[in-house]
Protein backbone atom coordinates (compact mmCIF):
# COMPACT_ATOMS: atom_id res chain seq x y z
CA UNK A 1 0.00 0.00 0.00
CA UNK A 2 2.84 2.38 0.91
CA UNK A 3 4.43 1.50 -2.42
CA UNK A 4 1.22 2.37 -4.17
CA UNK A 5 0.97 5.73 -2.43
CA UNK A 6 4.53 6.54 -3.46
CA UNK A 7 3.88 5.41 -7.04
CA UNK A 8 0.75 7.51 -7.45
CA UNK A 9 1.85 10.28 -5.09
CA UNK A 10 3.16 13.71 -5.90
CA UNK A 11 6.73 12.98 -4.77
CA UNK A 12 9.77 12.96 -7.06
CA UNK A 13 9.11 9.35 -8.13
CA UNK A 14 5.34 9.65 -8.06
CA UNK A 15 3.07 9.78 -11.09
CA UNK A 16 0.39 11.78 -9.30
CA UNK A 17 0.92 15.05 -11.09
CA UNK A 18 0.96 13.43 -14.53
CA UNK A 19 -2.19 11.44 -13.76
CA UNK A 20 -3.88 14.63 -12.51
CA UNK A 21 -2.94 16.45 -15.70
CA UNK A 22 -4.22 13.54 -17.74
CA UNK A 23 -7.51 13.70 -15.81
CA UNK A 24 -7.86 17.35 -16.77
CA UNK A 25 -7.20 16.36 -20.38
CA UNK A 26 -9.95 13.72 -20.20
CA UNK A 27 -12.36 16.33 -18.83
CA UNK A 28 -11.35 18.84 -21.50
CA UNK A 29 -11.66 16.45 -24.43
CA UNK A 30 -14.95 14.92 -23.21
CA UNK A 31 -16.47 18.34 -22.53
CA UNK A 32 -15.43 19.62 -25.97
CA UNK A 33 -16.84 16.51 -27.60
CA UNK A 34 -20.06 16.75 -25.61
CA UNK A 35 -20.56 20.42 -26.51
CA UNK A 36 -19.93 19.62 -30.17
CA UNK A 37 -22.40 16.76 -29.89
CA UNK A 38 -25.02 19.07 -28.37
CA UNK A 39 -24.82 21.50 -31.27
CA UNK A 40 -24.89 18.67 -33.79
CA UNK A 41 -27.59 16.78 -31.93
CA UNK A 42 -29.85 19.84 -31.79
CA UNK A 43 -29.40 20.42 -35.52
CA UNK A 44 -30.07 16.79 -36.39
CA UNK A 45 -33.09 16.65 -34.09
CA UNK A 46 -34.44 19.75 -35.83
CA UNK A 47 -33.83 18.14 -39.23
CA UNK A 48 -35.70 15.02 -38.15
CA UNK A 49 -38.67 16.94 -36.72
CA UNK A 50 -39.07 19.89 -39.07
CA UNK A 51 -36.91 19.10 -42.06
CA UNK A 52 -38.09 18.18 -45.54
CA UNK A 53 -37.76 14.64 -46.83
CA UNK A 54 -34.11 14.66 -48.01
CA UNK A 55 -33.03 16.35 -44.78
CA UNK A 56 -34.92 13.80 -42.71
CA UNK A 57 -33.42 10.90 -44.62
CA UNK A 58 -29.92 12.34 -44.22
CA UNK A 59 -30.45 12.87 -40.49
CA UNK A 60 -31.84 9.35 -40.01
CA UNK A 61 -28.91 7.90 -41.93
CA UNK A 62 -26.44 9.84 -39.77
CA UNK A 63 -27.97 8.53 -36.56
CA UNK A 64 -28.22 4.93 -37.81
CA UNK A 65 -24.66 4.86 -39.11
CA UNK A 66 -23.02 6.48 -36.10
CA UNK A 67 -24.92 4.30 -33.65
CA UNK A 68 -24.04 1.13 -35.52
CA UNK A 69 -20.35 1.60 -36.22
CA UNK A 70 -17.63 1.02 -33.63
CA UNK A 71 -16.40 4.27 -32.06
CA UNK A 72 -12.84 3.14 -32.59
CA UNK A 73 -13.41 3.06 -36.34
CA UNK A 74 -14.74 6.64 -36.31
CA UNK A 75 -11.67 7.80 -34.40
CA UNK A 76 -9.38 6.07 -36.91
CA UNK A 77 -11.29 7.68 -39.77
CA UNK A 78 -11.03 11.18 -38.34
CA UNK A 79 -7.39 10.82 -37.36
CA UNK A 80 -5.98 8.99 -40.35
CA UNK A 81 -8.45 10.41 -42.85
CA UNK A 82 -7.78 13.91 -41.51
CA UNK A 83 -4.04 13.37 -41.66
CA UNK A 84 -4.37 12.01 -45.19
CA UNK A 85 -6.23 15.14 -46.30
CA UNK A 86 -3.87 17.43 -44.44
CA UNK A 87 -0.81 15.75 -45.93
CA UNK A 88 -2.24 16.06 -49.43
CA UNK A 89 -2.94 19.73 -48.74
CA UNK A 90 0.56 20.30 -47.41
CA UNK A 91 2.08 18.64 -50.46
CA UNK A 92 0.13 21.05 -52.64
CA UNK A 93 1.95 23.97 -51.07
CA UNK A 94 5.27 22.20 -51.34
CA UNK A 95 5.78 20.57 -47.94
CA UNK A 96 7.13 17.05 -47.68
CA UNK A 97 6.48 14.06 -45.43
CA UNK A 98 3.55 13.20 -43.25
CA UNK A 99 1.42 15.84 -41.57
CA UNK A 100 -0.68 14.51 -38.70
CA UNK A 101 -3.80 16.18 -37.40
CA UNK A 102 -3.96 17.20 -33.80
CA UNK A 103 -5.03 14.19 -31.70
CA UNK A 104 -7.20 16.36 -29.45
CA UNK A 105 -9.10 17.83 -32.40
CA UNK A 106 -9.54 14.50 -34.19
CA UNK A 107 -10.60 12.75 -30.97
CA UNK A 108 -12.98 15.48 -29.83
CA UNK A 109 -14.62 15.69 -33.25
CA UNK A 110 -14.93 11.89 -33.50
CA UNK A 111 -16.49 11.48 -30.06
CA UNK A 112 -18.57 14.61 -30.70
CA UNK A 113 -20.01 13.19 -33.91
CA UNK A 114 -20.95 9.96 -32.11
CA UNK A 115 -22.36 11.88 -29.15
CA UNK A 116 -24.38 14.05 -31.56
CA UNK A 117 -26.19 10.98 -32.88
CA UNK A 118 -27.23 9.99 -29.36
CA UNK A 119 -28.08 13.54 -28.32
CA UNK A 120 -30.35 14.04 -31.32
CA UNK A 121 -32.45 11.14 -30.01
CA UNK A 122 -32.55 12.71 -26.55
CA UNK A 123 -33.57 16.11 -27.95
CA UNK A 124 -36.20 14.56 -30.17
CA UNK A 125 -37.74 12.77 -27.21
CA UNK A 126 -37.62 15.94 -25.11
CA UNK A 127 -39.32 17.94 -27.87
CA UNK A 128 -42.05 15.32 -28.11
CA UNK A 129 -42.68 15.73 -24.37
CA UNK A 130 -43.65 19.40 -24.72
CA UNK A 131 -47.42 19.81 -24.58
CA UNK A 132 -48.78 20.64 -28.04
CA UNK A 133 -51.04 23.29 -26.53
CA UNK A 134 -48.02 25.32 -25.49
CA UNK A 135 -46.79 25.54 -29.07
CA UNK A 136 -50.26 26.40 -30.35
CA UNK A 137 -50.71 29.05 -27.68
CA UNK A 138 -47.37 30.63 -28.56
CA UNK A 139 -48.29 30.69 -32.23
CA UNK A 140 -51.70 32.15 -31.51
CA UNK A 141 -50.23 35.10 -29.66
CA UNK A 142 -48.15 35.75 -32.77
CA UNK A 143 -44.69 34.66 -31.61
CA UNK A 144 -42.15 34.43 -34.41
CA UNK A 145 -40.46 31.05 -34.88
CA UNK A 146 -37.12 32.05 -33.33
CA UNK A 147 -38.90 33.56 -30.33
CA UNK A 148 -41.07 30.46 -29.94
CA UNK A 149 -37.97 28.32 -30.12
CA UNK A 150 -36.11 30.41 -27.53
CA UNK A 151 -38.90 31.04 -25.04
CA UNK A 152 -41.13 27.98 -25.29
CA UNK A 153 -39.22 25.06 -26.76
CA UNK A 154 -35.69 25.41 -25.37
CA UNK A 155 -36.50 25.93 -21.68
CA UNK A 156 -38.95 23.04 -21.55
CA UNK A 157 -37.16 20.60 -23.85
CA UNK A 158 -33.93 21.14 -21.96
CA UNK A 159 -35.65 20.26 -18.72
CA UNK A 160 -36.94 16.98 -20.11
CA UNK A 161 -33.61 16.29 -21.78
CA UNK A 162 -31.46 16.46 -18.65
CA UNK A 163 -31.65 12.77 -17.63
CA UNK A 164 -30.95 11.61 -21.19
CA UNK A 165 -28.14 14.11 -21.59
CA UNK A 166 -26.64 12.79 -18.36
CA UNK A 167 -26.49 9.31 -19.89
CA UNK A 168 -24.93 10.61 -23.11
CA UNK A 169 -22.34 12.57 -21.13
CA UNK A 170 -21.32 9.38 -19.31
CA UNK A 171 -20.96 7.70 -22.71
CA UNK A 172 -18.78 10.55 -24.01
CA UNK A 173 -16.63 10.38 -20.88
CA UNK A 174 -16.03 6.68 -21.38
CA UNK A 175 -15.56 7.00 -25.13
CA UNK A 176 -12.86 9.59 -24.54
CA UNK A 177 -10.68 6.70 -23.33
CA UNK A 178 -10.58 5.45 -26.92
CA UNK A 179 -8.82 8.62 -28.04
CA UNK A 180 -5.74 7.16 -26.32
CA UNK A 181 -5.24 5.00 -29.43
CA UNK A 182 -4.23 8.07 -31.45
CA UNK A 183 -1.85 9.25 -28.75
CA UNK A 184 -3.72 11.93 -26.83
CA UNK A 185 -2.34 11.93 -23.28
CA UNK A 186 -5.58 11.49 -21.38
CA UNK A 187 -6.10 9.17 -18.39
CA UNK A 188 -5.78 5.85 -20.20
CA UNK A 189 -2.82 6.91 -22.37
CA UNK A 190 -0.98 8.22 -19.32
CA UNK A 191 -1.71 4.96 -17.50
CA UNK A 192 -0.31 2.99 -20.45
CA UNK A 193 2.84 5.10 -20.44
CA UNK A 194 3.23 4.63 -16.68
CA UNK A 195 2.54 0.92 -16.92
CA UNK A 196 5.15 0.56 -19.63
CA UNK A 197 7.91 2.37 -17.83
CA UNK A 198 7.34 0.97 -14.31
CA UNK A 199 6.11 -2.52 -15.29
CA UNK A 200 3.25 -2.15 -12.85
CA UNK A 201 0.26 -2.15 -15.21
CA UNK A 202 -2.21 -3.28 -12.55
CA UNK A 203 -1.63 -0.23 -10.33
CA UNK A 204 -1.89 2.15 -13.26
CA UNK A 205 -5.01 0.68 -14.84
CA UNK A 206 -6.76 0.35 -11.46
CA UNK A 207 -5.96 4.02 -10.85
CA UNK A 208 -7.32 4.91 -14.29
CA UNK A 209 -10.51 2.98 -13.54
CA UNK A 210 -10.86 4.76 -10.19
CA UNK A 211 -10.38 8.16 -11.83
CA UNK A 212 -13.13 7.41 -14.35
CA UNK A 213 -15.41 6.24 -11.54
CA UNK A 214 -14.78 9.48 -9.63
CA UNK A 215 -15.45 11.59 -12.73
CA UNK A 216 -18.63 9.73 -13.62
CA UNK A 217 -19.91 9.79 -10.03
CA UNK A 218 -19.31 13.51 -9.58
CA UNK A 219 -20.84 14.41 -12.92
CA UNK A 220 -23.74 12.03 -12.22
CA UNK A 221 -24.47 13.92 -9.01
CA UNK A 222 -24.24 17.17 -10.96
CA UNK A 223 -26.82 15.97 -13.48
CA UNK A 224 -29.08 14.79 -10.64
CA UNK A 225 -28.93 18.26 -9.12
CA UNK A 226 -29.60 19.88 -12.48
CA UNK A 227 -32.60 17.61 -12.92
CA UNK A 228 -33.97 18.49 -9.48
CA UNK A 229 -33.43 22.17 -10.25
CA UNK A 230 -35.03 21.94 -13.67
CA UNK A 231 -38.04 20.03 -12.39
CA UNK A 232 -38.70 22.19 -9.34
CA UNK A 233 -41.64 23.91 -11.03
CA UNK A 234 -43.23 20.66 -12.23
CA UNK A 235 -45.82 18.91 -10.15
CA UNK A 236 -45.07 15.24 -9.69
CA UNK A 237 -47.35 12.59 -8.38
Amino acid at each position, binding site marked *: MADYVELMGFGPKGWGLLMAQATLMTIAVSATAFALGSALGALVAWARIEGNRPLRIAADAYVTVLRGIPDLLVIYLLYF*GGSQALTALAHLVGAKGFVGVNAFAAGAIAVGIISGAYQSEVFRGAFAAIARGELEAARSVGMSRPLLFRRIIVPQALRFAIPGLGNVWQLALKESA*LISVVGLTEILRQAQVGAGSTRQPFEFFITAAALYLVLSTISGLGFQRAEALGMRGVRRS
Partner: protein
Amino acid sequence: MDFDFLKETVLLLLSGVPLLLQLSFFSIAAGALFAVLLALMRLSGNPVLDYAARSYVFVFRGTPLLVQIFLIYYGLGQFPEIRQSFLWPFLREPYWCALLALTLNTAAYSSEIIRGGILSVPFGQIEAARACGMSRGLIFRRIIVPQGLIVALPAYGNEIILMTRSTALASTITLMEVTGIASKIISETFRAVEVFICAGAIYLILNFAISRAIALLERRLSPQFQAPAPVAAVPERA
Protein backbone atom coordinates in the same frame (compact mmCIF):
# COMPACT_ATOMS: atom_id res chain seq x y z
CA MET B 1 -13.16 5.18 -56.95
CA ASP B 2 -10.73 2.30 -57.07
CA PHE B 3 -13.06 -0.70 -57.11
CA ASP B 4 -10.29 -3.28 -57.07
CA PHE B 5 -8.98 -1.84 -53.83
CA LEU B 6 -12.50 -1.77 -52.33
CA LYS B 7 -13.13 -5.38 -53.30
CA GLU B 8 -9.83 -6.54 -51.90
CA THR B 9 -10.42 -4.59 -48.69
CA VAL B 10 -13.90 -6.04 -48.19
CA LEU B 11 -12.56 -9.57 -48.67
CA LEU B 12 -9.78 -8.96 -46.16
CA LEU B 13 -12.20 -7.42 -43.67
CA LEU B 14 -14.68 -10.26 -44.05
CA SER B 15 -12.02 -12.66 -42.80
CA GLY B 16 -12.37 -10.92 -39.44
CA VAL B 17 -16.11 -11.47 -39.21
CA PRO B 18 -15.97 -15.00 -37.69
CA LEU B 19 -13.83 -13.74 -34.81
CA LEU B 20 -16.16 -10.77 -34.33
CA LEU B 21 -19.21 -13.03 -34.22
CA GLN B 22 -17.51 -15.46 -31.86
CA LEU B 23 -16.53 -12.72 -29.44
CA SER B 24 -19.95 -11.15 -29.41
CA PHE B 25 -21.89 -14.43 -29.30
CA PHE B 26 -19.94 -16.01 -26.45
CA SER B 27 -19.71 -12.83 -24.40
CA ILE B 28 -23.42 -12.13 -24.77
CA ALA B 29 -24.36 -15.71 -23.89
CA ALA B 30 -22.12 -15.89 -20.83
CA GLY B 31 -22.95 -12.30 -19.91
CA ALA B 32 -26.69 -13.04 -19.99
CA LEU B 33 -26.31 -15.90 -17.50
CA PHE B 34 -24.22 -13.76 -15.19
CA ALA B 35 -26.67 -10.87 -15.63
CA VAL B 36 -29.63 -13.00 -14.52
CA LEU B 37 -27.66 -13.95 -11.42
CA LEU B 38 -26.87 -10.29 -10.74
CA ALA B 39 -30.48 -9.24 -11.25
CA LEU B 40 -31.68 -11.95 -8.86
CA MET B 41 -29.08 -10.80 -6.32
CA ARG B 42 -30.42 -7.25 -6.59
CA LEU B 43 -33.98 -8.47 -6.09
CA SER B 44 -33.21 -11.07 -3.43
CA GLY B 45 -33.92 -8.75 -0.52
CA ASN B 46 -30.68 -9.90 1.09
CA PRO B 47 -28.73 -6.68 1.80
CA VAL B 48 -25.30 -8.29 1.34
CA LEU B 49 -26.14 -9.81 -2.05
CA ASP B 50 -27.94 -6.64 -3.12
CA TYR B 51 -25.00 -4.44 -2.17
CA ALA B 52 -22.46 -6.72 -3.88
CA ALA B 53 -24.41 -6.72 -7.14
CA ARG B 54 -25.01 -2.99 -6.91
CA SER B 55 -21.29 -2.24 -6.49
CA TYR B 56 -20.40 -4.57 -9.32
CA VAL B 57 -22.79 -2.79 -11.68
CA PHE B 58 -21.57 0.61 -10.50
CA VAL B 59 -17.92 -0.21 -11.17
CA PHE B 60 -18.41 -1.88 -14.55
CA ARG B 61 -20.80 0.72 -15.87
CA GLY B 62 -18.74 3.64 -14.58
CA THR B 63 -15.44 2.73 -16.23
CA PRO B 64 -14.54 2.49 -19.93
CA LEU B 65 -14.50 -1.01 -21.42
CA LEU B 66 -11.01 -0.35 -22.77
CA VAL B 67 -9.71 0.17 -19.23
CA GLN B 68 -11.32 -3.12 -18.19
CA ILE B 69 -9.70 -4.92 -21.13
CA PHE B 70 -6.26 -3.49 -20.32
CA LEU B 71 -6.67 -4.23 -16.63
CA ILE B 72 -7.39 -7.89 -17.36
CA TYR B 73 -4.89 -8.35 -20.19
CA TYR B 74 -1.93 -6.35 -18.88
CA GLY B 75 -2.78 -5.92 -15.20
CA LEU B 76 -3.48 -9.48 -14.06
CA GLY B 77 -0.26 -10.91 -15.46
CA GLN B 78 1.69 -8.78 -13.02
CA PHE B 79 0.91 -11.12 -10.12
CA PRO B 80 3.01 -14.27 -9.77
CA GLU B 81 0.05 -15.94 -8.02
CA ILE B 82 -1.96 -15.64 -11.22
CA ARG B 83 0.92 -16.53 -13.50
CA GLN B 84 1.40 -19.78 -11.61
CA SER B 85 -2.26 -20.67 -11.31
CA PHE B 86 -4.31 -22.90 -13.59
CA LEU B 87 -5.92 -19.74 -15.00
CA TRP B 88 -2.74 -18.51 -16.64
CA PRO B 89 -3.04 -20.53 -19.89
CA PHE B 90 -6.30 -18.63 -20.42
CA LEU B 91 -5.41 -15.20 -19.08
CA ARG B 92 -2.23 -15.21 -21.15
CA GLU B 93 -4.26 -15.27 -24.36
CA PRO B 94 -5.70 -12.02 -25.66
CA TYR B 95 -8.73 -13.95 -26.93
CA TRP B 96 -9.82 -15.13 -23.48
CA CYS B 97 -9.00 -11.78 -21.89
CA ALA B 98 -11.15 -9.93 -24.40
CA LEU B 99 -13.94 -12.46 -23.95
CA LEU B 100 -13.75 -12.14 -20.16
CA ALA B 101 -13.77 -8.33 -20.24
CA LEU B 102 -16.68 -8.21 -22.71
CA THR B 103 -18.64 -10.74 -20.64
CA LEU B 104 -18.14 -8.91 -17.35
CA ASN B 105 -19.01 -5.61 -19.03
CA THR B 106 -22.19 -6.71 -20.73
CA ALA B 107 -23.36 -8.54 -17.61
CA ALA B 108 -23.38 -5.23 -15.71
CA TYR B 109 -25.50 -3.46 -18.33
CA SER B 110 -27.80 -6.43 -19.00
CA SER B 111 -28.51 -7.06 -15.33
CA GLU B 112 -30.22 -3.68 -15.13
CA ILE B 113 -32.30 -4.47 -18.21
CA ILE B 114 -33.28 -7.87 -16.82
CA ARG B 115 -34.08 -6.36 -13.43
CA GLY B 116 -36.38 -3.88 -15.15
CA GLY B 117 -38.07 -6.74 -16.99
CA ILE B 118 -38.61 -8.74 -13.80
CA LEU B 119 -39.94 -5.69 -11.95
CA SER B 120 -42.39 -4.99 -14.76
CA VAL B 121 -44.39 -8.14 -14.00
CA PRO B 122 -47.43 -6.98 -12.01
CA PHE B 123 -47.32 -8.17 -8.43
CA GLY B 124 -50.88 -9.42 -8.69
CA GLN B 125 -49.70 -12.08 -11.12
CA ILE B 126 -47.11 -13.36 -8.69
CA GLU B 127 -49.62 -13.23 -5.88
CA ALA B 128 -52.08 -15.24 -7.95
CA ALA B 129 -49.40 -17.79 -8.81
CA ARG B 130 -48.57 -18.13 -5.13
CA ALA B 131 -52.23 -18.54 -4.30
CA CYS B 132 -52.36 -21.46 -6.75
CA GLY B 133 -49.50 -23.01 -4.82
CA MET B 134 -46.75 -22.60 -7.44
CA SER B 135 -43.21 -22.99 -6.17
CA ARG B 136 -40.74 -20.11 -6.55
CA GLY B 137 -38.95 -21.81 -9.41
CA LEU B 138 -42.16 -22.49 -11.24
CA ILE B 139 -43.34 -18.90 -10.73
CA PHE B 140 -40.07 -17.66 -12.18
CA ARG B 141 -40.28 -19.97 -15.18
CA ARG B 142 -43.96 -19.73 -16.01
CA ILE B 143 -44.99 -16.26 -14.84
CA ILE B 144 -41.99 -13.94 -14.61
CA VAL B 145 -39.81 -15.04 -17.55
CA PRO B 146 -42.45 -15.01 -20.31
CA GLN B 147 -43.83 -11.62 -19.31
CA GLY B 148 -40.56 -9.96 -18.31
CA LEU B 149 -38.85 -11.09 -21.50
CA ILE B 150 -41.18 -9.10 -23.75
CA VAL B 151 -40.58 -5.94 -21.74
CA ALA B 152 -36.81 -6.43 -21.61
CA LEU B 153 -36.30 -7.52 -25.21
CA PRO B 154 -36.11 -4.12 -27.00
CA ALA B 155 -33.54 -2.78 -24.53
CA TYR B 156 -31.68 -6.08 -24.61
CA GLY B 157 -31.59 -5.94 -28.40
CA ASN B 158 -29.88 -2.56 -28.13
CA GLU B 159 -27.36 -4.08 -25.76
CA ILE B 160 -26.62 -6.88 -28.25
CA ILE B 161 -25.96 -4.32 -30.98
CA LEU B 162 -23.78 -2.28 -28.62
CA MET B 163 -21.78 -5.40 -27.79
CA THR B 164 -21.25 -6.14 -31.47
CA ARG B 165 -19.78 -2.65 -31.77
CA SER B 166 -17.74 -3.11 -28.60
CA THR B 167 -15.93 -6.19 -29.89
CA ALA B 168 -13.93 -3.67 -31.96
CA LEU B 169 -11.98 -2.85 -28.79
CA ALA B 170 -10.52 -6.36 -28.83
CA SER B 171 -8.34 -5.09 -31.67
CA THR B 172 -6.37 -3.02 -29.13
CA ILE B 173 -5.00 -6.23 -27.63
CA THR B 174 -3.85 -7.63 -30.98
CA LEU B 175 -7.00 -9.54 -31.95
CA MET B 176 -7.55 -9.24 -35.68
CA GLU B 177 -11.28 -8.86 -35.99
CA VAL B 178 -12.82 -6.43 -38.48
CA THR B 179 -11.63 -3.20 -36.85
CA GLY B 180 -8.19 -4.66 -36.19
CA ILE B 181 -7.82 -5.58 -39.87
CA ALA B 182 -9.19 -2.17 -40.87
CA SER B 183 -6.63 -0.31 -38.80
CA LYS B 184 -3.87 -2.50 -40.21
CA ILE B 185 -4.95 -1.75 -43.80
CA ILE B 186 -5.24 1.97 -42.98
CA SER B 187 -1.74 2.11 -41.54
CA GLU B 188 -0.35 0.25 -44.57
CA THR B 189 -2.18 2.14 -47.31
CA PHE B 190 -3.23 5.44 -45.67
CA ARG B 191 -6.60 5.19 -47.38
CA ALA B 192 -8.72 5.74 -44.31
CA VAL B 193 -11.92 6.80 -46.05
CA GLU B 194 -12.21 3.79 -48.34
CA VAL B 195 -11.41 1.32 -45.57
CA PHE B 196 -13.84 3.06 -43.26
CA ILE B 197 -16.64 2.73 -45.79
CA CYS B 198 -15.98 -1.00 -46.25
CA ALA B 199 -15.69 -1.76 -42.53
CA GLY B 200 -18.65 0.47 -41.68
CA ALA B 201 -20.81 -1.34 -44.24
CA ILE B 202 -19.95 -4.70 -42.67
CA TYR B 203 -20.93 -3.50 -39.20
CA LEU B 204 -24.13 -1.91 -40.47
CA ILE B 205 -25.19 -5.10 -42.24
CA LEU B 206 -24.51 -7.15 -39.11
CA ASN B 207 -26.45 -4.72 -36.95
CA PHE B 208 -29.32 -4.67 -39.39
CA ALA B 209 -29.49 -8.47 -39.31
CA ILE B 210 -29.44 -8.49 -35.51
CA SER B 211 -32.13 -5.87 -35.17
CA ARG B 212 -34.36 -7.72 -37.66
CA ALA B 213 -33.86 -10.95 -35.72
CA ILE B 214 -34.77 -9.21 -32.44
CA ALA B 215 -37.85 -7.64 -34.01
CA LEU B 216 -38.94 -11.05 -35.27
CA LEU B 217 -38.42 -12.61 -31.84
CA GLU B 218 -40.34 -9.76 -30.25
CA ARG B 219 -43.24 -10.40 -32.60
CA ARG B 220 -43.22 -14.08 -31.84
CA LEU B 221 -43.16 -13.54 -28.09
CA SER B 222 -45.94 -10.97 -28.04
CA PRO B 223 -49.16 -12.71 -27.04
CA GLN B 224 -51.28 -10.86 -29.58
CA PHE B 225 -49.34 -12.46 -32.44
CA GLN B 226 -49.51 -15.99 -31.15
CA ALA B 227 -51.94 -18.52 -32.46
CA PRO B 228 -54.99 -18.66 -30.21
CA ALA B 229 -54.88 -21.46 -27.70
CA PRO B 230 -56.85 -24.54 -28.79
CA VAL B 231 -59.54 -24.01 -26.16
CA ALA B 232 -61.89 -22.64 -28.78
CA ALA B 233 -63.52 -26.01 -29.21
CA VAL B 234 -66.95 -24.52 -28.72
CA PRO B 235 -69.16 -25.64 -31.59
CA GLU B 236 -70.26 -22.82 -33.82
CA ARG B 237 -73.89 -22.01 -33.65
CA ALA B 238 -75.80 -22.50 -36.79
